[in-house]
Structure formats: structure tokens, C-alpha cells
């Protein structure tokens, strides 16, 4: 057991820090602190340009093998990059779905031609992706997917509807879970297709969230098309591929996210000191608890970094989602009555208000709290299904 960073890690950290310092300048300087959950609408064009700058410098897909344009970076190096990125308050990434969900899926399950076609666009920050899993009738129960696709004249024809699709409004492509065997049920007969978003057969209707902003949309497929080759894995094998996509989280994102959490908590503490609420024993206890739990999350993330044990991702998801949701409540309580009015119309939220409202989503998306508990109970604790 040795929990220090090695010299080579420190060197790598210095390189990352240096690059960020040199590049978050000029026009990009104003990107600091923009984007991220609940604020995906901010500076979207400039953040896309920033994504391309990251790609040109080789900072996207660090963990991918060199032959795919990655750096073959170790997990720890990926953590270091993400930590330094967060420490620099660099902007929320516009292509999380492409980099962290689709790219590893392509590497694991995709045909070489698909890898050649799509990985460079992700690694250069040029093609942005969204995830088309959820449907009106298929949320937690993803196997209830009904959107269907059929091969017609050398391409897939797709009909149906997705919902809650984050970033659909600006994404270039969508990875979609569809039913390709008519009459099939549940996990069978599904396929994982890659579909261009800008085409006549696709209509994107943004949905306004409780924050008044909109980062997810309904996506209607009405005779939408994608080339027959744009399928990851075999036809009918989509469930396995989709589950693979969900299983790539190995704790890198978790550790990086904690840097952002630290900043949010520091801000709440600063506010509590400034307005005197720190003297309220309830508030100070909650702040200390939040601080303690954040440390605990870090130690746990370090111990489970790279873990492929079933349930490890579920524990981490429950921890951070609940923590962040509580932080939202703490933040608004620290604000006090002042938080009941807005800084502007139509519905302009300040930091605490946005945190308070957006963090309600944390325990719902990417597997709700209840679904994570099911996973832990069934796969880790081995409790009987019936």
C-alpha cells in the first residue's frame, strides 16, 4: 500500500498544468467555470472550439491505445489530467458522451472500419455525440426499447422516439439502441446504431428542465437513415454492447468530479462565513459532514480505481449523487431567504439556485438511486431475486 504519486506522475501533472495555463487564455479565458451539469447551454460555440483545441493537443481519449490516436495513458494519468483540468476550472466538456461512452465502446465492440471512421472525429473534438437510450416507455427498464430499425436498400431506416437525450440539440451523431428484429422482446433483437443527427428524418424538440434551461430533448425518428455499416457489434447484439457502454466507468471521472465538488463546497463555506450562517450549528454541522463525506468519496475512489467488480460503479454513483443533492440543499439553506428571488428574467438562476435545482437530476440519470440499489443487492450482496 503506497498512496503517494510517483515522480513520473508529478512530471505528467506538471505537463498538463502547463498546457492548461498556456491555453486557457485569450478568447478561451472566459470559458473558465462555464458548462457542466445544468449549464450545458453556456458558451456552447466557444466550448466546441475549445474541445477542438484539446483534441489538437492530444488531450482527448488519453487512455486509448496509441494506434487510435490516444496516449495509452494509465488510469492514474487519466485521473491526473482530469484533476488538473478541474483545478484549472476549465469548461465543462461538450463531448463527454463521445469520449467516455462511445469511444471505449467502439474500441471494444466496433468493427475496424467503424473505429477508423469515428474515433478520429471524437479525438479531434470535431464530432459531438449524444446517447439515445431512454424512451417514453423505457427508462429504468431499458430493455423495453421500442424504437425500431430495418435494413432497406443498404441503409437502416429508423422509426420511433427517444427522450431525455442530453446534448441532442447540438450533437452531430447519436448512438441509439433500437429494435432490429420485429416481434422480438426484451434484451433480444436489439442493435446499437450510429445515426447522424442532422437529417430530415430526425426532429429534435428541446425539453425545458426544472432549471428553466434545456440540455435534453425529445428526438423523433421518422424514416431517419444511417448506413448499413453503422452498427456496433452484430445485429441483435445491441444489449450486450449497450451494457458495455454503461460499464466503462472505472472511477476516473469520479475522482475528477470531486475536484469540482470541492470547489462547490468551498464556495458554500465561503458564503456561510460571509453571511454568518456558519454560526448556525446545523449549518456548520452539515458543512463539516459534507467535507467529511467528500474525503471519504476520495479514499473510496482511490481504492476502487480501475475496479471492474460488479457494483463498484453503483456504490460510487450512489455516493456522489446523494452527496451532491444534499449539497444543493445545503447551498440554498446557506443562502437563506435571499434565494427565493431571482437575479433576472426570464428565469435566471445564481450558483446556489442552479445547484439546488440541477442536483435533483443526479439521483435519476445514469441509473437512478433505486436501480443502483437493485444492482448492489442482486449482484454484490447476492440477495435472492424471489
Amino acid at each position: 500500500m503506497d498512496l503517494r504519486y510517483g515522480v513520473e506522475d508529478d512530471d505528467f501533472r506538471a505537463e498538463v498544468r502547463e498546457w492548461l495555463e498556456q491555453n486557457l487564455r485569450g478568447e478561451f479565458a472566459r470559458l473558465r467555470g462555464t458548462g457542466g451539469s445544468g449549464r450545458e447551454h453556456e458558451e456552447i460555440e466557444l466550448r466546441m472550439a475549445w474541445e477542438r483545441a484539446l483534441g489538437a493537443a492530444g488531450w482527448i481519449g488519453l487512455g486509448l491505445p496509441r494506434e487510435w490516436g490516444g496516449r495509452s495513458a494509465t488510469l492514474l494519468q487519466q485521473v491526473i489530467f482530469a484533476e488538473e483540468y478541474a483545478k484549472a476550472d476549465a469548461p465543462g466538456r461538450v463531448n463527454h458522451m463521445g469520449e467516455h461512452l462511445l469511444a471505449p465502446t467502439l474500441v471494444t465492440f466496433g468493427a475496424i472500419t467503424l473505429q477508423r471512421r469515428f474515433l478520429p472525429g471524437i479525438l479531434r473534438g470535431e464530432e459531438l455525440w449524444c446517447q439515445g437510450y431512454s424512451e417514453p416507455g423505457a427508462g429504468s427498464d431499458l430493455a423495453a426499447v421500442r424504437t425500431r430499425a430495418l435494413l432497406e436498400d443498404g441503409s437502416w431506416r429508423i422509426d420511433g422516439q427517444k427522450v431525455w437525450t442530453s446534448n441532442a440539440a447540438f450533437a452531430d451523431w447519436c448512438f441509439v439502441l433500437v429494435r432490429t428484429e420485429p416481434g422480438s422482446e426484451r434484451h433480444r433483437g436489439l442493435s446499437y446504431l450510429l445515426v447522424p443527427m442532422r437529417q430530415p428524418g430526425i426532429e429534435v424538440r428541446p425539453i425545458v428542465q426544472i432549471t428553466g434551461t434545456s440540455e435534453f430533448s425529445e428526438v423523433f425518428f421518422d424514416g431517419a437513415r444511417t448506413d448499413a455499416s453503422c452498427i456496433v457489434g452484430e445485429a441483435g447484439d445491441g444489449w450486450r454492447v449497450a451494457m458495455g457502454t454503461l460499464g466503462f466507468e472505472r472511477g476516473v471521472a469520479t475522482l475528477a468530479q470531486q475536484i469540482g465538488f470541492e470547489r462547490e463546497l468551498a464556495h458554500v463555506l465561503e458564503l456561510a462565513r460571509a453571511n454568518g450562517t456558519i454560526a448556525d450549528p446545523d449549518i456548520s454541522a452539515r458543512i463539516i459532514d459534507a467535507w467529511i463525506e467528500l474525503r471519504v468519496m476520495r479514499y473510496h475512489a482511490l481504492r476502487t480505481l480501475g475496479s471492474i467488480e460488479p457494483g463498484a460503479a453503483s456504490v460510487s454513483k450512489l455516493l456522489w449523487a446523494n452527496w451532491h443533492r444534499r449539497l444543493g440543499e445545503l447551498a440554498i439553506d446557506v443562502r437563506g431567504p435571499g434565494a427565493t428571488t431571482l437575479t433576472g428574467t426570464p428565469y435566471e438562476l445564481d450558483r446556489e439556485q442552479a445547484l439546488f435545482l440541477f442536483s435533483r437530476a443526479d439521483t435519476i440519470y445514469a441509473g437512478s438511486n433505486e436501480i443502483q440499489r437493485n444492482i448492489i443487492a442482486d449482484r454484490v450482496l447476492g440477495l435472492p431475486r424471489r
Partner: protein
Amino acid sequence: MRFEFSEDQQELRQTVRGFLERHATPDVVRAAAEQGSGFAGSLWKRLVTEMELTSLAIDPALGGAGASFVEVGIALEELGRTLLPVPFLPTVVAAAALSEAADHHGAVPLLERIVAGAAATIALDAAHASATSRGGAITVSGTVPFVADGAHAEFALLATTLDNQPALLAVELAGPGAQLDAQPTLDQTRSLATLTLSSAPAACLTAPAAGAQAIARARDVLAVASAMESIGAAARCLELTLAYLHDRHQFGRPIGSFQALKHRCADLHVALEPARSTAYYATWTVTGAPDELAVVGPLAQLVAGDALLAISRESIQLHGGIGFTWEHDAHLFFKRAKSSELLCGGRRALRTLIGQRAGIV
């Protein structure tokens, strides 16, 4: 960066667990708790002489194994699983404090006695006793409550003031001026005694200016030790509860198949595993990152204690009527959980301490 136990450490765990599974059976634990006034004497002898567990982290030059506190933590965790009433925790915390004082005064012979099999105890609340020196001879007086395993220890390390300066002293418990009164305990797997000192001769283990720091550090190591013990107990208690949820049938199905209970068990797992990570991290800081110990020690104690309390509470509830009986072990874990919390001063005090050390309040 490598957050995992080495092969040697895993082997140590297997050896200790194997030994305890064979010998520290629930019956043995019960007997020691109920009739043995909280002391499994013959098993203790084997743990220290045959297994040499108390000398794990003692300097090889003094006959110890020269391991780190991580190894000690593994043994604490394994013993925590069994709730076996033995003076292991106070002895190893005393050994750690003595090792740090080893270039001073009388620490070396005391460490050698631990290597030879002596149990020690440690009482770190300086408010209860005070000492004076006269012509080089130190005597200490006061009444020290809740001395862990005092009745089975040969000597005690005592936080006190020596001529109004914080100091860590060693006192012979069978010596003149020292009287121990064992107390009946709520948690019978833990033996507690009141130590009355009237001008008892003592040796000082700390330099005049270093006493406060040595006491604080010993307290933080004690916190880590308690965290590891709690993690072991919590894990075992959860295992027993899960096994019951498989076995017990109601409404024609195992009660563990009811989602209401599944989700509660999942939450217990989510309480335990991060607390475990924290406790492991804390054992590493004892030697690996001493600067972090002041925060991480109490923090580990807090979250591990919380996990044990949550799990042991739910364990009683999820066992139904049988969980409320004297015969079932559920109450042993529950009582251990509460007594651990109360003896560390309560979770509120612990939280405030962490808040202070983190610079929040």
C-alpha cells in the same frame, strides 16, 4: 500509487482469519464475555505468543516484526469481526506510542515486555490525573474512568500533566498506589476498569515540549485502530444479516427477496465500503503520511463507527424477534457499536474536531 494490500499483507489476513475462525468461535466469545469478565485469557496468550500479533509493528531490534500500522490494522479488523474480548487494541496503540518515544527514557523495556506477551492499556484523556516530579521521581494521582482492558494489562500509558505540562506517562498497574476496579459493562465483549492512582510511581515517556503532540498523535492512532476494529465488526454483522435474509422465509419466499429489505442492505453496503476505504487509507497515513493523520484518524473513526452503528441497528431489525434475544449475537454488535461511539466522546465531538482540524470552524 497502489491502494491495495501486498501479498504478504493478504497472507497475514488469511492466517489471522483462519486462526480466529478455528478458535475465536461465537461460543468462546460468549463465554469470555459473560463469565470471563471480558477476557478470553487463554486465547489471548496464543495470539501474542504463537501468532505474535502485538509485536507486529515493533522494531525487529526489540524482537518485533517491524511491520507498519497497516499490518496492525489488518489484525484489528480481523479481531473486530469476532468481537473477541482481548486487550489487543489498547496494547497495539500503546506499542505505537512507545515506538515513537523509543529514543526516550523507559520506552524500550516496555516494548520488550509487549514482545514478551504483556498486555498494555492506554488512557488519553488528560483531565483525570496529574503528576509531579520531585528529585527525579515522578508520582501520579487521580481517578481515570473507562480504562480499556485495564484489569488485564500490566502497565498503562497515561496522558496527564506533569508539573503542569502535558506528558505521556507509564504506570505499573500492579505497582504501589495503583488500584483497578473492573466495571460491569454494557458491551460485555469489552472490559473497562476505573483506575485509582494515589501517588503511584510513573515514568515519563515524552520530552517536556513534546508531550501534547505525542498525546494528540496517540489519540489519532487510537482513532485509526478503533476504525479498523469497527470495520471488521460491521462487515461480519452485515454478512450474518445477509445470510439470515437468505434463510428466513415468510410469505413463501426468502425475506431477502423483498425489495424494501434489499435496498436497506444496499445502503448498508454503501455505508460500509467507503468507510472501509477510509479506514485502510488511515492505517497507511500512520507511517505513510503522518501529516494527514490528524484529520484522517478521527475521520476514519467517525465513518467506521457510523457504519457499524447503522449495520448493527438494522441487523436487529432485519432479524425480527430472534434479533432481540440474548441468545442471538445481533445485540453484541449493537452494544459494541454504541460503546465505541460513546467512549470516543460521541460523534458530535468527533465531527467538531474534524471541522476544526480541516479549518472549517
